[in-house]
């Protein structure tokens, strides 16, 4: 019986609530309308440059001599993939794309492996001077990479690392490691101590603990780090420019002198260069934001 009685007051209570909420909804919407409109306008403004780059990249160069990229909206038939087609058959560009991929992937792997190992050591292994060494690593967090350009230029020359992908990968690894170690050490210290202790009592050695426990448990932090590092090196210009390697950024840089006449090459190349980061960003947005927060708020 109670099951019948119970819905009645609920239904009765719902009727005025519905009426109220329709009126309230309109009122609420009206109150919020200025904010909504403002944010829509801001959002559109924020999108314009990226849309502009894409529109420019799919227009023939002669169309861009007298009219802006927004002509695409009145004449969509002008759109063509020929700029992209030409780029894909350009050896310089294809090689540059490969170089970028090698640098970004190689660097991400090294930073994650070395960073996780060091992070684990700082979090869970005991050895003399541990905290002092860690303070040293924190000190390196903000060292501008400009400090290393001149000495490494000399050293690379001596050890034939100039102009090699390895040279770029290692350089980025060094400047990515302080943040990696800082982030992962903080994350690893949050792993409950008894899990590690019981593994040790069971006779697992540190290497096993690292591979079987720390890495899986630390995956969220490792993922954020990997994405960050990947984007950072994918987008690098200064290091490759200095040490004579040609990823996409440097390749485009070489075309910039003729900005007006090479726009049909520059725009699609720039757009290709940002496609991969965008894909990574959309696929792993959550980790990206987490990494950002860990890096700044902590």
């Amino acid at each position: 019986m109670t099951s019948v009685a119970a819905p009645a007051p609920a239904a009765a209570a719902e009727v005025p609530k519905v009426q109220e909420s329709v009126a309230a909804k309109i009122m609420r919407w009206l109150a919020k309308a200025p904010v909504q409109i403002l944010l829509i306008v801001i959002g559109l403004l924020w999108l314009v440059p990226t849309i502009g780059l894409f529109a420019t990249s799919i227009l023939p160069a002669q169309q861009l001599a007298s009219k802006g990229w927004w002509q695409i909206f009145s004449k969509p038939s002008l759109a063509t993939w020929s700029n992209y087609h030409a780029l894909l058959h350009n050896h310089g560009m294809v090689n540059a794309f490969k170089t970028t991929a090698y640098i970004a992937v190689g660097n991400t792997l090294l930073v994650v492996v070395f960073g996780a190992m060091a992070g684990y050591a700082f979090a869970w292994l005991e050895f003399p001077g541990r905290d002092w060494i860690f303070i040293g690593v924190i000190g390196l967090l903000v060292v501008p990479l400009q400090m290393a350009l001149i000495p490494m230029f000399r050293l690379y020359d001596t050890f034939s690392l100039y102009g090699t992908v390895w040279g770029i990968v290692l350089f980025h690894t060094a400047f990515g490691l302080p943040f990696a170690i800082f982030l992962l050490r903080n994350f690893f210290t949050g792993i409950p101590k008894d899990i590690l202790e019981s593994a040790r009592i069971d006779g697992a050695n540190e290497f096993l603990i690292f591979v079987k426990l720390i890495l899986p448990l630390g995956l969220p932090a490792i993922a954020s780090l990997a994405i960050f590092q990947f984007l950072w090196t994918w987008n690098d210009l200064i290091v490759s420019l200095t040490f004579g390697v040609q990823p996409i950024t440097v390749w485009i840089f070489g075309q910039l002198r003729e900005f007006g006449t090479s726009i049909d090459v520059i725009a699609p190349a720039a757009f290709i260069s940002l496609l991969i980061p965008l894909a990574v960003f959309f696929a792993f947005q959550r980790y990206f934001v987490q990494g950002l927060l860990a890096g700044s708020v902590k």
Partner: protein
Amino acid sequence: MEPPLAAAPPESGEGRNWGRYVAGAVFLAPALFVLGVWVVYPVVYTVLRSFFGQSGYLGTWVGLDNYKRLFTTSTLETAIKNNAIWVAVVPAFVTSIGLLFAVLLEKIRWKVAFKTVVFLPMAISAFATGVTWRIMYQQDPNLGAVNALTRSVKDVFNQPGVLSQAFPSTSGLQQASPGGAMVLQRPLATGSVALLGLTGIAPADVPKTAVQAVQPPSKPGTIVGTVWRDFKPGGGKVGVVEKGELGLPGVTVELRSAAGKTVQSTTSQPDGSFAFSGVSPGSYRAAIGAQTFAKPFAGYAWLGPKLITPALLIAYIWIWAGFSMVVVAAGLAAMPRDVLEAARTDGASEWQVFRRVTVPLLAPVLIVVLVTMVINVLKVFDLVIALAPESTQQNANVIALAMWRTAFGGVNDFGTGSAIAVFLFVLVIPVLMLNIRRFRTENK
């Protein structure tokens, strides 16, 4: 390969400790090796190198000369000044825009969409951003979106004239200054006919509605006249309205008194004719108003020497606003809701809640964003080198770019280059100290 000693289960305290030490060393070795070779050694070398001359492993000792050059060479001075502008403007703007967006976001349903859109530029390289904005900033309003937008706003208040360029066809009509009004020198009385002939108008610039020019008949009590293109293929006779010559519609014609005051104003018909009726007797002058020749908006030179730094700042803020918004929004989400609710129940307005509760509670987050942005801005490089055209890069110079140009841009002055790098390093040392202090207090 596994460290053999670490594998040993706890036997004696000593053995176990040694195992741990070795394990620690093995786990740290790769990172410390890379950091030692690529960061620590370079820092020591660069600091030393900054006291030596231009070339060589160390070169000749020059003491503080390289540092003096930092503040006496004009290009480096520009770089330091520009970087000071960056530090003064960007962190404050980025933080407040982020705060504004984060607070406004709370009021809408499509938070995620908005966040994604504003955050997007963070994933794009500073270099690609430079290329993108260079397209946006082109000076010709027909090509650059920023100037196109400015033009459409400006045109609402400031219509461009119907004729972009024109010259008087006879010396009877005179223009005091380029782009100014043209005054017919001959005094006019009521019943006169004023002939205002213009030349030097490109066929494309003739208004579309123009028809064959007509010289209206004189009428008592009225001053009439024609504005026309006093030219036809083959030349024609100057100062005479002929067949094949077009009237100029939409031209502003003013009737001025002897004292030079405009008493009446009208615009010409498609055949170029105009009439001032109800004119009291006296001596008058006819003139073509200056607004007829008002130049269309030619676009601001965003990429020129004067505006290049503001242009860069805008693009940079476009990149980093998303970062600030996301961090502040996370701070907002972690804020105790009941405090805000309590303030609202106590009758505080939204603005008061924002000023007195939200901002103070968010202060630590806002400071983190500010400090992060100061560091980022000090190191700015890619955006400048991509966005600023070669010709204005001197005007847009910043410390990191000056360092690179000095050391690798042809002169290859490693001494001064090192000094600039050290200068940059010294600027971020306060943040370095802050980081270390924070770690030590957290670990106590």
